[in-house]
């Protein structure tokens, strides 16, 4: 049976499954308990699983992640919520210097089954520090895995897969898509895709568009907008580290064109990595250089210009025009 759920609710149900499946799973963060999180992703979980498992923490991100490390050494599986993307940085030291390196430096004796959930990205008209896309900082760090869901079914399964993973995972939630609805197969006993796999979400023949998180919807909208004129193949990366580029190579070899879309600035971002690897693997198939449609290389701007800053349907289609104009 499938249920129609919002992406936010799908995460909530997924977290509930994880708490049921393993009593070592803990949820911790600011306002995650009684309030259910500022986005209500943990709504009702403290009520049902108790204050020992769903923990309102002191207001200190370094403390949230640092204590998660200790809890993990003790055998727990902490799922940490960072309230907004821009507030992860007080914890950055703990994440990149401790969480990411424990397994390596213990030669595998210590596991860090920690999930760091971060609502990320813009488009909600917020004040500064509430709309950022910090994925490259984390994807750049060896030892961390980074994933992002784009639809309710993926949200439901990916969060459970992340919690079950013995590696630390930065789990990026596209906050502006929290309210989007979709079918979720809550009866299935296992996910249909491994966590670290990219997926073709719309087949096409003329040009490949790669996106993840909030921009998958934008890419799909662009594909619909030019349907009949041009056939765009949209790929949802889902995993940013490790990258699963097999489906991208396969696609580019057919279409000869690639556009990578993300909200984060282009400079040294995910698009740069994808472009470099696709160039290495598909050089003779490319009809045009790999193009990036991204946020600009500025700090995230004030809300009243964020629409201009963020890639939207028109910007993606402009990218499509440019690749065909080559």
């Amino acid at each position, binding site marked *: 049976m499938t249920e129609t759920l919002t992406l936010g609710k799908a995460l909530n149900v997924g977290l509930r499954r994880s708490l049921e499946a393993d009593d070592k799973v803990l949820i911790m963060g*600011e*306002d995650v*308990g*009684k*309030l*259910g999180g*500022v986005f209500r992703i943990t709504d009702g979980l403290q009520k049902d699983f108790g*204050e*020992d498992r769903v*923990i*309102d*923490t*002191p*207001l*200190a991100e*370094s*403390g949230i992640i640092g204590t998660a490390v200790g809890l993990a050494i003790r055998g727990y599986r902490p799922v940490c919520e960072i309230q907004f993307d*821009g*507030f992860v*940085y*007080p914890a950055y030291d703990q994440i990149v210097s401790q969480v990411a390196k424990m397994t390596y430096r213990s030669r595998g004796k210590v596991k860090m089954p920690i999930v760091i959930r971060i609502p990320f990205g813009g488009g909600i*008209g*917020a*004040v*500064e*520090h509430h709309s950022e896309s910090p994925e490259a900082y984390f994807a750049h760090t060896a030892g961390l895995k980074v994933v992002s869901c784009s639809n309710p079914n993926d949200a439901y399964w990916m969060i459970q897969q992340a919690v079950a993973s013995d590696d630390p995972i930065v789990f990026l939630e596209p906050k502006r898509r929290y309210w989007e609805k979709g079918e979720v197969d809550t009866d299935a006993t296992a996910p249909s895709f491994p966590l670290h796999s990219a997926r073709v979400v719309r087949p096409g023949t003329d040009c490949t568009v790669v996106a993840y998180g909030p921009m998958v919807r934008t890419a799909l909208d662009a594909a619909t907008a030019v349907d009949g004129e041009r056939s765009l193949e949209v790929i949802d990366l889902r995993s940013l580290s490790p990258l699963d580029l097999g489906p991208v190579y396969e696609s580019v070899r057919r279409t000869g064109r690639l556009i990578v879309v993300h909200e984060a600035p282009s*400079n040294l971002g995910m698009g740069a990595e994808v472009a470099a690897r696709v160039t290495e693997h598909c050089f003779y198939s490319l009809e045009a250089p790999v193009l990036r449609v991204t946020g*600009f*290389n*500025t*700090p995230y*701007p*004030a*809300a*009243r*210009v*964020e629409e*201009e*800053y963020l890639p939207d349907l*028109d*910007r993606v289609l*402009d990218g499509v025009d440019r690749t065909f104009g080559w």
Partner: protein
Amino acid sequence: MAKGDTAPARTRTTRRAKPAPAPEFVQLLTPEGERVDHPSYTVDFTDEDYRGLYRDLVTVRRLDAEATALQRQGELGIWASLLGQEAAQVGSGRALQPQDMVFPTYREHGVLYCRGIDPIMPLSLFRGVDQGAWDPNEFKFNMYTIVIGAQTLHATGYAMGVAKDGKVGGPDGEAVVAYFGDGATSQGDVNEAFVWSSVFNAPIVFFCQNNQYAISEPLERQTRVPLFQRAAGFGFPGIRVDGNDVLAVYAVTRDALDNARQGQGPTLIEAYTYRMGAHTTSDDPTRYRIASEVEAWQAKDPVKRVRAFLEKQKLADDAFFDEVDEAARVQAVHLRERVLDMPNPDPRTLFDHVYSEGSPLLDEEREQFSAYLASFEGSAH
């Protein structure tokens, strides 16, 4: 532990704080408007001063209500209301000397007002037309800081600079005040600010508005001891004041600022108050606190007690109170008009001021973006 002793039974790992005892704090004006004495603190206000404080309290509350209304009507993206915290902000704001420097959070609209700054200034941030772009040195009031606690370190560094400049101990002494909330006291940055200011004897006052909540989390999630007591461990005095008593807040803050100016280093003030409204306009406090708690605090309202005092002492009549309300209303209307008039920024300005001198990458992006925008001109887009 001697044999036979039994460990106290623990049923849960999260220790519940005992219900808070009635706090002891410096108070000069009771909720009923009675003027009371304190052995160490007093104020020597003229009748006009008392009326002025009342006017400040009413005005900042009225302007705040206007901003909340503007948010409800979609004219502001969000608003962080100071409702309930007027006395903490007016009392401390009025205690400042012109040369003193303020490092606010995102809620210090009342302090800003008392500094003589046009209350329109922070509204561009909440409307989303900019990020609160004013010159901290021009106004002696730093830009609002949203990342919890970060500004306490900035304030400490600024205060270290004041000391380096020799502006401590003399008649032209400067002091610095850092505002933050109860939740912020858990942050590493705030604790580091305590360490630094103590070690370097910085001329700073840490002004914590303990409004009992950090969004949904009550004070017990941040501390097992009264917050002001933390100062002792860092090596400087801490004091708790009735944050809803504008007179006491004024007296305590002025004293702490004087001490800082005279080279006696930092003080932590805990202004014990209550956030009467939501955390911000995005928040729904009914999910985490009960109405009776809010009602109990209503009886300690910071504005009403000054009015009661003025009435009892026959320092003001109805004509005065009406005039204050009317003047505040006019200011609110004026504020509203100017918010509605704020232009949206030209999107091309996105690329300005990332660096003092620009960059080739940004120049290229600006050029491409301008061409892109131009491609829509004349179309129905």
